[in-house]
């Protein structure tokens, strides 16, 4: 606990040096008088002067400690403004329930999440309609927790709102500053909800500069490879086709390798400020010093 205390502005400690120098070399100018037994008086006051100066130095030390802003790093999460932001778009339509496709997808996506430690990841689901399950976040645990709760058909089981999902998840990047924005669109069907046309969805994708990897699972007839390929090509991504668990795993591995995040993550630190303690102590000691001075006058 204690060794986690770090200072935000350690340079503030330098204040102590000029103070100590000044304590001995630039004293306040007072009217001075000759005193014959100065030598003895100095000897007699040595102890109390030492105490007073120590008190002064301690106060300044505490104040500079407060200024240096000691913090406790409570929790370190990962931030990567300039890194990747990945939006996972997963088909949860009724057909995904067949052959435990959805279970396999969940497993593989879960693995993928674990690998992308330094990236922001969002999750969108679509079926009859599309919705954003988790917006872009570093919090992998909550994505995983949510992913486990998902079932095929959670967003309606009869239709596939593919374009809507693409449009919605593209909008996730609205306030994003990331250099690389990636969407991985996974589906086993064709779009059959016509509330958002492909053009509109693609416009949004291009507007935010999102690279879309498309993954079609199942047999060639289940999904529309042309549309998926078109989406991928126009956005600069790639189209994959998987008909086995092994293949799907490879695809995600490939994407993982293609979009390897090279940048070391910036650390995002949740801080607890502790400056109040030295500051409070310094104030207390100042009052003590004042009290001491006051007593001297009696």
């Amino acid at each position, binding site marked *: 606990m204690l060794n986690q205390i770090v200072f935000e502005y350690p340079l503030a400690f330098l204040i102590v040096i000029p103070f100590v120098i000044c304590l001995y070399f630039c004293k306040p100018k007072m009217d001075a*008088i000759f005193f014959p037994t100065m030598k003895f008086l100095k*000897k*007699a*006051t040595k102890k109390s*002067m030492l105490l007073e100066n120590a008190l002064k130095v301690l106060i300044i030390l505490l104040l500079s400690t407060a200024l240096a802003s000691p913090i406790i790093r409570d929790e370190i999460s990962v931030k990567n403004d300039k890194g990747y932001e990945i939006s996972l778009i997963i088909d949860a339509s009724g057909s995904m329930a067949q052959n435990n496709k959805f279970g396999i997808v969940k497993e593989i996506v879960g693995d993928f999440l674990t690998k992308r430690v330094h990236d922001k990841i969002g999750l969108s689901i679509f079926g009859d309609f599309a919705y954003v399950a988790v917006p872009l976040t570093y919090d992998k645990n909550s994505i995983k927790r949510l992913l486990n709760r998902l079932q095929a058909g959670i967003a309606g089981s009869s239709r596939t709102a593919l374009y809507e999902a693409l449009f919605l998840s593209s909008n996730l990047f609205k306030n994003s500053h990331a250099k690389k924005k990636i969407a991985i669109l996974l589906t086993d069907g064709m779009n059959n909800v016509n509330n958002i046309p492909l053009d509109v969805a693609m416009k949004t994708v291009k507007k935010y500069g999102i690279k879309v990897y498309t993954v079609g699972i199942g047999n060639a007839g289940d999904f529309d490879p042309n549309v998926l390929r078109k989406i991928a090509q126009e956005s600069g991504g790639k189209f994959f086709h998987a008909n086995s668990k092994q293949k799907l795993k490879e695809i995600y591995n490939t994407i993982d390798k293609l979009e390897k995040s090279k940048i070391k993550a910036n650390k995002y630190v949740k801080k607890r400020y502790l400056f109040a303690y030295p500051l409070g102590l310094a104030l207390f000691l100042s009052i003590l010093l004042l009290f001491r001075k006051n007593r001297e006058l009696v």
Partner: protein
Amino acid sequence: MIRNRLKEILLKVKKKVFTGNLGNTLSTFKGTGLDFSEIKDYVIGDDVRAINWKSTAKGLGVKINLFNEERELNVIVAYLISGSINFGVRRMKQDAMAEALGYISYSALKNSDNLTTIFFDEKMEKLFKPTKKLGILEDLIGHALSLDAVGHSVDFESFCTFINSSIKKRSLIFLIGDFYGAVNISKISHKNEVYALIVRDRFEENPSFSGDISLVDPVSLSEDDLSLDSSSLKEYKKVLQEQDDRLFEHFLAHKVKYGKIYTDDDIYMKISQITKG
């Protein structure tokens, strides 16, 4: 300013010494002289020329007169200059020391003793050669009043060396100073009769400063800010007491008569008390 003060002190000195009991510093040797001392019974061997016939005629046996021996004394007055004499609340120590110097010098001159006056700091500052002339009194007090003591301190070691090398005759030595620091006069005390007049101000022994104060050491001229409270003043008095105890012990060990004279004391009275022992 100094001129007026000089006149005041001169007047005071002359008045006090003139009206006061003269001859306190005279030798107590009995012998032939003019200074009548007492009448005592005749014992065999006494000088028959000294028989007091009037007293003898009264019928109580043969009486003779006794006289104080007329002996020329060698009186040395040393005015010890250290920076610390430049202090005083109502009256400067330097001024009080000048007055003390005046009493002793005038008494000695009135007695027609040989008076040598030495002003001494680290070295011999000024020497007034042995004299019996009364006129020197004004010069002595004038010099004592006008000298600048700040920055000086008394080197007792070289003072003793100086006295031993220049004064050969057994003398009566009066030291006037405030006797701070390392005092060692053992080298002159065995041969001469030494009196130490310790001139102090009451405030320096019992300062009622409080709080922060900036003080200058009059010897080293270093300035320091001190923060004083009652406990440190108590400590100060203890330190000062220790220094004085050491000083008195030294005086007693070497048979030096000493006494403290405060600036607000009647200096003539104090000197009489000290010299009478």
